């Protein structure tokens, strides 16, 4: 453990949808360059926690910090919008269902936000798109529409789109769960590449072997609490908690 301030600091996160308490006092610190996996059964609050980080699902209690900036601070509406739009530029997010913009070609999917928010010229934006699409191995499809791509290709473009904003952190919410099994690996490879470049990442996943191979730390969540956390070899090989053991056993059986 380092003694510096955490890069991402979630303090006592609490979230309710109406009377349903989805996150119950969760704290999580992530250092710069660290890769954290979040695993747990469906409905345990993994997405909600991830989406709280960029305030897509605002917390009902607790704080989220990125470096020395509080993300979910209370501000008058206008100021809050300005603040959160700035913060979100620094946090890349990748969704289970890709959410590419279907009316735009791959190139414009990647250049839209940098052009609009950073005022990049057409030439600079194109260079950026080419750079990011090369990185994810999608440069040959730069002039295709999303509908002309496979799921794995779509997800790689979605990653390039997020990377084009040069985020400090990348959040992945089951990035490979919607993919046919044979397309999972190409997306995992891209994520591994980011790991090698020391991108700070929080990855919600059901891919235990992938999590074990790339992550520095694993969190097991259940019913809105972090049941157990630790290095992957401990969580996966030697979990202390009964619930973790149970979950992993079921998961292995299902993956079987």
């Amino acid at each position, binding site marked *: 453990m380092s003694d510096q301030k955490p890069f991402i600091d979630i303090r006592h996160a609490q979230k309710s949808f109406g009377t349903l308490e989805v996150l119950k006092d969760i704290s999580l610190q992530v250092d710069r360059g660290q890769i954290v996996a979040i695993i747990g059964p469906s409905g345990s609050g993994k997405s909600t926690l991830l989406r709280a980080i*960029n305030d897509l699902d605002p917390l009902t209690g607790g704080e989220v910090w990125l470096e020395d900036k509080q993300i979910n601070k209370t501000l008058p509406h206008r100021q809050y919008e300005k603040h959160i739009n700035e913060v979100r530029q620094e946090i890349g997010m990748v969704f289970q269902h890709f959410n590419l913009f279907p009316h735009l070609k791959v190139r414009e999917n990647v250049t839209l*936000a940098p052009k609009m928010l950073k005022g990049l010229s057409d030439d600079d934006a194109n260079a950026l798109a080419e750079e990011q699409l090369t990185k994810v191995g999608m440069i040959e499809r730069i002039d295709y529409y999303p509908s002309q791509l496979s799921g794995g290709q779509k997800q790689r473009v979605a990653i390039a789109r997020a990377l084009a904003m040069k985020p400090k952190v990348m959040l992945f919410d089951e990035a490979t769960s919607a993919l046919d099994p044979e397309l999972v690996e190409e997306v995992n490879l891209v994520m591994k590449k980011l790991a090698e470049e020391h991108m700070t990442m929080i990855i919600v996943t059901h891919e235990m072997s992938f999590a074990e191979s790339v992550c520095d730390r694993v969190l097991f969540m259940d019913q809105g609490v972090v049941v157990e956390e630790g290095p992957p070899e401990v969580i996966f090989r030697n979990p202390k908690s009964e619930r973790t053991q149970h979950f992993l056993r079921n998961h292995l059986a299902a993956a079987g």
Partner: protein
Amino acid sequence: MGLDFSVIPKYLDIVLIGALWTIAITLGAAVVSFFGGIFLAIVALYAPAFVRWPFRVFSFLFLGTPLLLQLFLIYFGLVQIGIDVPAFVAGVVGLGLHFAVYNSELFQTSILAVDKGQTEAARTLGLSRMQALRTVVIPQAVRDVIPPIGNNMIALLKDSALVSVIGVSELTLSAQRAIGSTYRPFEFYVLVAAIYYIINLGMEAVLRRVERRIQASR
């Protein structure tokens, strides 16, 4: 007195000029109804109540009263309070706003039908609500609603004949003038019907091209 289509050539230029006016009115009103429809849809969905309500009353009036009356009101009524609009402009605006209200209903439905994940992805990149709406949601909503909007445009072409009542020499009024000189209503009305039909075919052809073009972007 039997049918005699030989009277037509002499008056063909009047009728064709009328056809050009009809096309001009239709195009002008189509543009007003398209962008007006998007504007009204955004107001209806996102504006604060004190903005939304006046527009709702406006929409209700346009939906609930005859187009003919609206044209009279814009052309003759506005002059009385000192606003003198040319008949052509009054026609384009009246027809355009009338259909903008219809289009607005279609746009509202299609805006709401755009997957929420689209807005989320845009907001996650740092776009503001308005930026996301403008660059991500509206283009998709418009794309999805092209076929019924196209039908409205064709209805608009047919209703453009009403603009003759405020004295714009469009196709129908030109025909009536030719008939006034020749007493040959059947011949000229058949001609005019054929011309409307041809313009209609032209609009449908454009529409089909647009639909094919946007097919890939789904």
